């Protein structure tokens, strides 16, 4: 069965080389989609993968570091990235764009924000929130054995490269940054804190399933400015789609689908929820989401 598909693809490639550029067909080479270490990105990548497979493309997934990926796209080692968060990746993305080879193929409607965050039960214990000065004033209630007198800020995995350490230093906050090993470790800590309503402040973002499970608020830091360490992250960041420059030429129809991709905050949160709360495998979560939202993604197909 599979072999037959290969043969067909091969024949198509042959036809292409004889037929000349007039017949713009997608190349039979696989489109390589990078996978990162947060759930919605993985699920979205698989959704795209399913769509492209249905479109007749061959697709491969590789896991990649979420910062290094832009350099890889630029070189054509991987071909796209479906979730470029402004707060986290704008710097790497822009740096790669400046060198050429990579561009934004589209943008989601979703608005992103990544920031220090607390669940609502903390608000009673530390009056004056969400202001950051109020947070700093009651830092000691966040203290843990590891951090001694200072409050603990639970950061994301180090490879997300948030400037938390630098911010703590620049703003002279009474906090120590402890990095969780993974997103799941963040939620595990949050769930554990919920049991006794222990005060906790951690890294969180939207769109994310966590907003549905644990109501909470972002801490308000001074508004974002380019290159300012004593400021917050962008409050209404973009969520873009990055693509390799060669993609449009090699796989025109796949590229068209990619550029039509457009998810909203609730949709993305739902994807994350399927994995992080329901415990589905990302592949299964992608299929489950596609079954639920057939109209949405059908509209983006050719």
């Amino acid at each position, binding site marked *: 069965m599979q072999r037959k598909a290969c043969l067909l693809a091969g024949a198509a490639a042959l036809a292409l080389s004889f037929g000349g550029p007039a017949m713009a067909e997608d190349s039979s080479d*696989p489109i390589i989609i990078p996978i990162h270490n947060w759930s919605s990105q993985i699920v979205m990548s698989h959704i795209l993968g399913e769509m492209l497979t249905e479109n007749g493309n061959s697709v491969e997934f590789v896991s990649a570091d979420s910062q290094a990926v832009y350099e890889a796209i630029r070189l054509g080692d991987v071909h796209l990235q479906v979730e470029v968060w402004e707060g986290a990746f704008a710097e790497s993305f822009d740096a790669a764009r400046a060198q050429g080879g990579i561009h934004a193929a589209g943008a989601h409607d979703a608005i992103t924000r990544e920031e220090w965050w607390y669940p609502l039960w903390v608000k009673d214990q530390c009056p004056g929130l969400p202001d950051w000065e109020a947070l700093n004033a009651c830092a000691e209630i966040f203290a843990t054995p590891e951090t001694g007198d200072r409050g603990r800020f639970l950061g994301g995995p*180090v*490879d997300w490269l948030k400037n938390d350490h630098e911010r703590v230093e620049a703003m002279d906050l009474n906090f120590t940054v402890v990095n969780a090993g993974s997103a799941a470790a963040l939620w595990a800590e949050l769930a554990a804190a919920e049991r006794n309503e222990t005060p906790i402040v951690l890294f969180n973002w939207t769109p994310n399933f966590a907003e549905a499970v644990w109501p909470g608020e972002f801490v308000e830091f001074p508004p974002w400015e380019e290159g300012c360490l004593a400021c917050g992250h962008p409050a209404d960041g973009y969520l873009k789609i990055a693509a390799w420059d060669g993609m449009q030429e090699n796989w025109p129809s796949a590229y068209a689908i990619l550029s039509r991709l457009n998810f909203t905050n609730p949709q993305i949160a739902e994807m994350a929820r399927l994995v992080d709360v329901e415990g589905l495998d990302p592949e299964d979560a992608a299929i489950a989401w596609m079954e639920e939202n057939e109209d949405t993604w059908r509209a983006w197909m050719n």
Partner: protein
Amino acid sequence: MSASLDQHAASVGNRSHPLQTWQILLALAFVLAVGKALLPPGLVRPPEWMILPFDDWINAAFDFIRNDLGLVVVTRAIADGIEWCLDVTGNLLYGRNRWPRIGPVPWSVVLVSMTMLGYALGGWRLAALAGGTILWIAVMGQWRWSMETLSVILVAAPVSVLLGLVTGVAAWRWRAFERVLNPLLNIAQSMPHFAYMIPVVVFIGVGPKAGAVVTIIFSVPPMIRLTLLGLRKVPSEVVEAGKMSGASQWNLLTRVRIPTARTEILIGVNQVIMQCLAMVVLASFIGMPGLGQRLLQMLQALRIGPAFEIGITIVLIAVTLDRLSRAWAMRKPVHHNPGTSWARRHRLWLIWAGLAVAAWLLAQMVPYFHIVARGQALSLAGPINAVVNAFLDVVSPFTEALRRFLIVQVLIPFRDAILWLPYTTVLAVVAAAGWALGGWRSALVCLAFIVPIAMTGWWDRAMITVYTVLTAVTVAALFGIPCGIWAAGKPSRARRTLLVCDTLQTFPSFIYLIPVVMLFGVSDVAVLAAVMVFAAVPLVRYTVEGLTGIAPEMLEAGQMNGATRWQALRHIRLPLAFPTLLVGFNQSVMFALFMVIIAAFIGTQDLGQEMQRALSATDVGKGLVLGFAVAFLGLMVDHLLMRWSDRVRTGNRRRQGAA
């Protein structure tokens, strides 16, 4: 008798000597620590002027080599060649859509082949192991990931072997080359895995080919070492016989030396395969697909059930590959009786061909035997999760209390104490240790290793690493050495323990994180536990080896003198085993260092964490500086412990001679 008197007199003489240099150094360290408040800041923390921007220099050098010299073109061309090989194995093993587009080979065919291979190399037991592993992988629905991993090993291992062989032969042939190579190998083998990844990412990028390249680089050193060893060990008479047979230099190498060094070279192959597996799993950090990636995802998602399953798969693969390649290395040729027919001589090949064709036909008819689809796979994840959860419910109050106690009462105070020490104190202590064990020369060597660390500006991070390793190795020694002593009590027990240690050491280091994450979650204590377990294995092993390796007449002499078991242990066996034990400590520290760095991704605050950040930011300079810092720490400990071991060993010998 008189010799021992002399020695005694000499040691008394030493003792009456006013003060030894190392004691002065130690006193100096003490004074520096006590008088910390009075010290100028430049003696407490490395002063600004002392910290050199090594990372900027390295970055500049890399930029120059990469872009201005255009080496990136070369490396990417090499990587493309490797990618082509990966495409072929990828197509054959898991049907990647690349030339030659005939894969994937049905799992049933692989099952038959591996079982036959196991049988040919090591009889039914090995056949069962190899077959069982393949069956587990296929039935548990882990085929694709496992084959992704194996397809890389299939490319990386032969390339490594070839590179290692050629380099090893060159080092054997040209003394000067060996002299240059040796220190490089020492550093390479004490650099943590991550340090290798960053330059590779710079030159090659991320993804499977980068993973393959880093795997190759990482696994070459042991092959070089063993090739060299094997060539050195070829009996001189065999070489002379070759010469007298009129062999030219080339003939001597290819037909006499290398075939005669077969066993060592094949043990090198075994090492390469095991290193490849360890690295391939870790290379998931730079985009290597397969089991490692899957395990990483599952661990990060804290999904213990699936993580556990993958862990079992990795362990099974490791043990199988290890046993197969070792059986191959140890295999001795056996003659056929004259007149044996062709079919009989090639009996195993024929059976294999028949079974493979049968399996292939079966796979064509029943798709299950071709590929086990997602829905058809068995999974133990549910039951494992249930068991683990039940287990955790029971132990979690205990582990939680333990964790809290360790953090508050032990770890934090100890860490703060180490961080509180002025760096000059640490330098003085290191110099004192060097001087005490190996004179001024060793003191200088140790300083040469540790002063650059102070100059990198990562002093505090390095001290956290030191603290983690120290704590872990100490705790590991506290239960590892008694374990070893107990195991050495009976020969059969000793043998079994060594086998267990052997097997544990074949596991890729990543595996050790699964149970600790399960028990302690993602925390400091989990890191410590993983490091501890990993570091305990060599300690147990060398304790057993040290205690069982004592000449029986020494023990008999003790028995004749009426020593009780405890006295024999305390006064005869332990002192004699001590040098071996020190070697165990040495390896334990090395393992701990490696593990600390790997464990970075479950949240540490030491060099490892910074290294992971450097990896994410593709900051070669920083990554290499950190890598060298770790390597230097390791080399320093290595130097000290080996010196000590040598000293004790010659001391033991002298004492025996005197007796």
